[in-house]
């Protein structure tokens, strides 16, 4: 311990020197955080049934034969989970983004009574523990809106509810960065407020809009708690719910394959968001923080 301490000190006396302990700690952290997932991905390609003994490479757990019905493609429960997740994410994305963008615009410019309260109403879902929102939505669909059947519909309504605030936060950051100069210029040149918005502001907002679509897709497809609380029956099982209920039952590697597909889809969506945001930053000659350019969205 003392040896490590003195080494740490030696490395730390010169703050602009090369640190020695920190990179090792960080490397160990990165390995610890990614290797378990890497192993899970690896075993999705195992040719045997085991998830701990490597028996050779195969894609049978992804696209195996219909007769065996054991791959994601042909095992009905896994395929349904995949389609349910994607369907839910697409629906949520298409509904939550326009509502969120309009709300962001409204909240940024509405200076009347009710603006503060509405702003608070938008912020609270961001800090509500998911289990609280899950219980609340479950009870409301059970007791009040009981004409909505549990399943895809309740899940969709729940997903949109938690997504709206994310869209607002992302779009609002962009709105403040753009400012009102361009719109005012358009109006000085004779555009009506609505023309200025449609022909000046919306094109400027387009990248934030596209990024919002992708992020909403990603958070919806990744959601577990709300999907589980609002589930209807076997037909509304999503991928995360399937992972949760299957993980402890000694499942075959097809569950790993399903998880891997989810991971690839999510990373794809986030990368789209990130690339769109980066492209925007370059075109407008802005220098965003490193975090923004890599994470693809504003914190």
């Amino acid at each position, binding site marked *: 311990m003392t040896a490590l301490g003195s080494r740490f000190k030696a490395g730390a006396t010169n703050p602009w020197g090369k640190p020695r302990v920190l*990179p090792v700690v960080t490397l160990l952290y*990165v390995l610890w*955080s990614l290797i378990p997932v890497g192993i899970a991905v690896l075993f999705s390609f195992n040719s045997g049934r085991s998830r*701990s003994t490597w028996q050779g490479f195969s894609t049978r757990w992804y696209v195996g034969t219909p007769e065996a019905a054991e791959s994601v493609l042909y095992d009905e429960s896994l395929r349904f989970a995949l389609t349910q997740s994607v369907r839910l994410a697409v629906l949520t994305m298409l509904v939550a983004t326009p509502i969120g963008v309009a709300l962001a615009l*409204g909240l940024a410019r509405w200076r009347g009574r009710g*603006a503060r309260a509405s702003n608070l109403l938008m912020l609270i879902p961001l800090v509500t523990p998911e289990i609280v929102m899950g219980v609340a939505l479950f009870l409301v669909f059970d007791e009040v809106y009981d004409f909505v059947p549990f399943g895809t519909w309740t899940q969709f309504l729940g997903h949109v509810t938690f997504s709206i605030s994310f869209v607002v936060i992302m779009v609002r950051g962009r709105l403040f960065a753009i400012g009102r100069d361009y719109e005012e210029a358009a109006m000085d040149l004779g555009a009506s407020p609505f023309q200025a918005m449609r022909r000046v502001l919306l094109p400027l907002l387009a990248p934030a809009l596209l990024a919002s679509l992708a992020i909403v897709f990603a958070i919806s497809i990744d959601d577990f708690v709300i999907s589980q609380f609002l589930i209807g029956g076997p037909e509304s099982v999503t991928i995360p719910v399937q992972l949760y209920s299957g993980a402890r039952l000694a499942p075959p590697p097809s569950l790993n394959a399903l998880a891997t597909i989810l991971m690839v889809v999510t990373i794809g969506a986030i990368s789209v968001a990130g690339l769109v945001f980066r492209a925007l930053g370059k075109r407008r000659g802005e220098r965003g923080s490193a975090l923004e350019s890599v994470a693809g969205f504003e914190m």
Partner: protein
Amino acid sequence: MPTNLASGAEYATVGQKRWVWPGFALPGVLWLALFFLVPFYAVFAVAMGQLDPILQRATPEWNPFYWDLTILGEAFAQLFGGQLGLIAFRTIAYVFIASLLCLIIGYPVAYFVSRKAGRWRWLWLLLILAPFWINYLMRMMSWVNLLSPDGQVNRWLTTIASWFSVEFVPPDWLAGHHLVVVLGLVYGYIPFFILPLFAALDRIDEATLEASRDLGASSSQTFWRVTWPLSRYGVLGGLVIIMLPMFGDYYTPNLLSGSPRTRMYGNTIDQFINQTTSGGALGAALTIILMMFVAGLMVYYLRSINRATEEARR
């Protein structure tokens, strides 16, 4: 940028209708009222409604004048002295230890990547962000894989034991070990702690640290008297972000143990709501208690979000 206030006044004279901006906000506000506020109220209505004696089902009471506090009182009684008290205490202990571990592991990582990573910074950043894009349940499932009785962890341990010819009986890690659940929580939530901390450390101006050095502070003095205080909001923000969901977590202990020994508060709510048909009222009461407990954290976090937006505005 001209100030928003001035231009707002100008628009009013241009003749823009007053209802335009509230009109834009309306669909979103309406949606949140219907699917966030009403459900929120429903939790109270159900928790303080009456239990139907025949159907054994909670009937919600919408009028606060008729709210019945029996069930909520029962829940509180359970909390102070009943079985639930132990579960609540365990949850607080788990969350506290896991948060502390996140701080101890996460701070050096965030500090290195934000200030010392040099040329490969983007790659480090990508690597510490990667867990964000991997589903939480998948990350937990990976550990279930590794820790299962015939999983990799036991294989490695058996191999290592054989080198030293030590007798080794592979334990069942998933049979209800406190340590496994706490480490699972750390593994699950630490990326959400590192990110806001990274952002806070990233914002510190290098010149501040140089000034401290120029004025003769040693590097540890510089750290404790400049860097650490400047990163305090990042640390607090990160801790709030991970503590809020941890207090309501039920899937991590369920996946990594499933034993009553490691039951958390969220498991009890999950049980009443998802696994029984008659526990609605009690589940709602427990949810109210959870909300009251985390309200302080929520208010603190909301204020910091608002402060950040105000700063972005300037």
